[in-house]
């Protein structure tokens, strides 16, 4: 029996000469997986990019060309963006949700959308890291390898069609982020951040995988579509296991997106980790976590909607309220932005809570536009903080409008964007979120969200106020209008060793004299009261320090990223394209 085809299992045949398989193998024992290669291109690009950087770093001299690693990473990111757009075009018109790689991956508009998002974040993250790492004397291939693998994990999370794949993506993403958080070798805070993130993140991963196991136990499937079809066909008398699994999965992913009450790691990590990585992490980890949550809740567990919506309701409310309020009392910019990003996650949760196509649209739009705002903001904080991350407190932005007007203008737009002022994407994001939730008749949640935004507006405005009003008062000590009780170095948490080639204080001559002259520029008005509203006594002193005297040096790549982020924040706030993409993603969900 040669030259023919024979049956190995029900449903498929193998040609014994060519080895070609036709039909779909379903029977036990046959291993055949249909692979839709175009769906895998982002993984090849990102994973390949990481491998190329690793290999080149082994063969090239230690410091080959400045910007080589960042350039390669940017190229991989651009490749991901382009491929995402190509996928978007090819998928046009298909309304079903196709799966590939043995039902492990979705190949749909949403995946393409998130691939573009992660590609953009990779490009921006790598571009702003370059200048930072050079300044800190940390240049090397490692963070870029980690960044690429993190993006790969993120794409995997967004494309995952089952809990195993989701967990795989989650772990790839998380482990890369742990290492990135701890990457600043000379800052104790960075190591601390990495360790905290590692311990709490592992706990969250364990909780997640336990939840997935419980869901598997209850439904017999690890695939979203398998779970949903099981739940559609079977009525469970006792669904405690299933509900427990669902709750644990929400906790695990809620940890990744830093929703209250699973947010405890985030302020510490944001404060300690290298600034550009924080911007990247805030965008990517959040978006990936939400992509996972979206798929799990809306594809696998739509039948439990009446159970998970109240849970998300509580998480959303807590995140918006506590994120906004706790951000008010922060003096450290990165810590403040951490709480701000917690409250922003609350808005995404509000959109998710709607559980409708409009909710999906809102989540996608909010995440995409937030990516630009948060990376742009951290890029600015990164250049302002000076060498060794010496200045992270509010006073670092003091007088920025006169020192560097364009940077101050950019920061203003990004702050207003996050506060949700019209003509920015943040406003339109809140608009679609609130529209989604009002579509379900929940005006209480909408009101809580918008009043939370009014609280949050205060700390965004405070940054703007400090930038625009407080003039520079050079270190010359003069009798201040206030007596400041604090003494000591520039901030307790950010202290620690400076880079080996230059002490931490070297960028700040005259820093020792700040305490005496600090209140001077504020005297004669109540600016001081606003600047320090809600802060503790020690933080007040920090916030009233004179600004650093060094000229703000913005590397070209960072400047370009900031410019793009600002332009995009305005562009997406007054135009249709991004919203139309988000709309197109949501279409299949409206059925």
């Amino acid at each position, binding site marked *: 029996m040669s030259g023919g085809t024979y049956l190995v299992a029900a449903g498929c045949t193998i040609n014994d000469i060519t080895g070609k398989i036709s039909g779909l193998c379903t029977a036990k024992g046959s291993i055949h997986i249909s692979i839709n290669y175009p769906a895998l291109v982002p993984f090849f690009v990102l994973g390949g990019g990481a491998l190329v950087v690793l290999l080149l770093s082994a063969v090239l001299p230690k410091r080959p060309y400045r910007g080589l690693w960042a350039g390669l990473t940017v190229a991989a990111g651009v490749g991901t963006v382009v491929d995402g757009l190509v996928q978007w075009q090819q998928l046009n018109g298909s309304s079903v949700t196709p799966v590939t790689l043995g039902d492990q991956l979705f190949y749909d508009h949403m995946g393409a959308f998130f691939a573009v998002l992660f590609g953009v974040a990779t490009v921006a993250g790598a571009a702003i890291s370059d200048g930072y790492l050079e300044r800190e004397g940390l240049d090397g291939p490692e963070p870029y390898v980690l960044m690429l693998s993190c993006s790969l994990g993120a794409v995997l999370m967004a494309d995952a069609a089952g809990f195993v794949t989701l967990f795989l993506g989650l772990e790839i993403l998380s482990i890369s982020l742990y290492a990135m958080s701890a990457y600043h070798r000379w800052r104790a805070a960075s190591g601390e951040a990495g360790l905290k993130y590692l311990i709490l993140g592992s706990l969250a991963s364990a909780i997640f995988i336990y939840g997935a196991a419980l869901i598997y136990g209850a439904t017999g499937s690890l695939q979203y579509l398998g779970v949903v079809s099981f739940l559609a066909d079977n009525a469970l008398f006792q669904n405690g296991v299933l509900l427990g699994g669902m709750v644990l999965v929400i906790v695990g992913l809620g940890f990744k997106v830093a929703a209250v009450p699973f947010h405890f790691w985030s302020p510490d990590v944001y404060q300690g980790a290298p600034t550009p990585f924080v911007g990247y992490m805030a965008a990517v980890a959040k978006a990936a976590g939400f992509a996972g949550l979206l798929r799990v809740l809306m594809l696998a567990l739509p039948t439990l909607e009446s159970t998970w919506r109240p849970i998300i*309701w509580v998480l959303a409310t807590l995140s918006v309220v506590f994120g906004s309020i706790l951000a008010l009392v922060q003096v450290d910019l990165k810590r403040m932005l951490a709480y701000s990003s917690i409250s922003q996650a609350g808005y995404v949760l509000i959109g998710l809570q709607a559980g409708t196509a409009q909710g999906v649209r809102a989540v996608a739009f909010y995440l995409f536009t937030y990516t630009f705002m948060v990376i742009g903001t951290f890029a600015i904080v990164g250049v302002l903080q000076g060498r060794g991350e010496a200045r992270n407190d509010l006073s670092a932005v003091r007088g920025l409008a006169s020192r560097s007007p364009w940077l101050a203008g950019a920061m203003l737009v990004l702050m207003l964007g996050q506060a949700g002022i019209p*003509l920015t994407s943040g406003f339109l994001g809140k608009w679609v979120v609130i529209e989604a939730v*009002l579509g379900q*008749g929940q005006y209480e949640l909408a009101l809580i969200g918008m009043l939370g935004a009014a609280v949050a507006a205060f700390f965004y405005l405070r940054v703007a106020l400090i930038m*625009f009003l407080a003039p520079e008062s050079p270190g010359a000590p003069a009798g201040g209008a206030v007596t400041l009780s604090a003494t000591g170095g520039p901030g307790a948490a950010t202290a620690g060793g400076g880079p080996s080639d230059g002490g931490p204080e070297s960028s700040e001559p005259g820093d020792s004299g700040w305490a005496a002259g600090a209140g001077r520029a504020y005297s004669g008005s109540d600016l001081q009261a606003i600047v320090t509203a809600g802060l503790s006594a020690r933080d007040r002193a920090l916030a009233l320090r004179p600004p650093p005297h060094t000229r703000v040096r913005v590397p070209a790549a960072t400047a370009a990223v900031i410019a793009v982020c600002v332009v995009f924040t305005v562009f997406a706030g007054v135009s*249709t394209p991004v919203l139309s993409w988000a709309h197109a993603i949501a279409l299949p969900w409206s059925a």
Partner: protein
Amino acid sequence: MGWILVVIILLPLGAALAVAALPRESAAGSVRPLALGVATLELAFAIWTAVAFKTGNAHAGFQFTSRQSWIGPLGISWYVGVDGISLFLVTVTALLFPIAMASPPVRRSPHAFYGWMLLLESACMATFLSLDAFLFFVAFEVTLVPGYFLIVGGEGPRRAYAATKFFLYTFAGSAFLFVGIIFTYILVQGHEPHGTAASFNIVSLARGTVNLPVTDQELLLVAFGIAFAVKMPLVPFHTWMPDAYTESPTGVSMVLAGVLFKLGAYGILRWGIFLFPLAAVQLAPLALTLAVIGVIWGSVVAAMQRDLKRLVAYGTIAGVGFIVVGLFGFTSQGITGGIVEMINHTLVTGALFLLVGMVWERRRTYAFSQLGGLQTVAPVLGWVFMVVVLADIGLPGLNGFIGELLVLIGTFITHRWWAVVATSGAVFGAIYLLWAYQRVFHGPARAVNSTVRDMTWAERAAVAPLLAAIIFIGVYPQPILSRIEPSVDHLVAHVEAANPGFKIPAKARGRGTFVVPKDQVVEVVAPPGPAPAKTAAAKPATKGGAK
């Protein structure tokens, strides 16, 4: 001629961006002429619009409309137009801004002051002209940012506090408007025939809202009303206002008090009463009560102030109360009077803050205890102040009289007792204003006060247009009333049609047969009964996680 409104909105915006882009040092001298030139050009466009505006009952609808799809997936369009209600608010806004900008700049950086002023003008114009709820909200909210930076750029000792309070109060109020607008859209869409997409266009919203159950309408009107009440400010929501007005530099107080608060009063008329006529009539006693409290309370508190600028600031609360009394009378006279009062208030409050600023320039104080006897050394300043005060009190022959008379007549017809109590406001107004005038200008000019110089020619030129408008409206209001009335009659008929149980006497309905363009007709399909139907807000099935 739809382009003219687009120009009116975009011209100051473009100029603001140009000012922001001008180099700091080298162009510092050219910023002021540029800004003033643009604002004057804007005034020319606004006057052109008012002249070209078609009068008569055949033109009760929106004129000079321009419409463009903007954010398609959300049903948002760029839709602007002007009718009798907004026409003169645009004109006086355009008149006040160049005068406010010509007042002595207080900032070290002229870029910031003129840039923010131009942006504010653009946003105010867009608020008055937009006929799309989204565009309206965007413009309404954008005014906060320049407002904040302008207040904070002043020289008052508590300016940061005042600016922050201003921003947060208004922003929190806007949260209700934000939710209200979207909820209105969603409820309207729920009533649309299947497959028809709703839009934020005011006419199509109104077509839906007039047929909503009364409880829904009331809820939404309250949400809208909170935002507008904070902005106006009506009495329980006013505490940000005296601080903000007092701490701002002269030009900024002028536009804050003259223009910004009108956004609230205009909003409640255009977006509150028009969209929810049924609820407006139901809630009118509440609004009227708050307004009357504002009239009395604002006057009394103003009379107790020891500081001229704070006195004028509290006086605006009384003025706002009067406007709301007129609007919630739902008669042709009352609403017309309310609109005329808005115009008057812009002129008079603008002029008062300008004059108070001149006193400040001379004496560097607002305290009554330090002032006195200025009439003898600065007679022109004294006389101008007197005329403006009399206009505010409502002396016949000046503009205040026309507005107050119409308001009181109109509201007396439908809501008698509120009108009666509000009348006392005119008396209280006379007390605090004349007393203030007396304390500042009469008596002997002691010490420093005796060396005060009179108004310069530049100052006279700045105040002249305001005085001219005050007298013009007082003696010949016809061109203004004839443009306002058809649109108001349309609104009154709309309110009446939506309220089966609410009959407005024929004499208060205006002169009858107005016409609006076909695409602006709002028909009340089914007069809603008092029993609320099942509302989306109360559906237990969709309430989700609330429990």
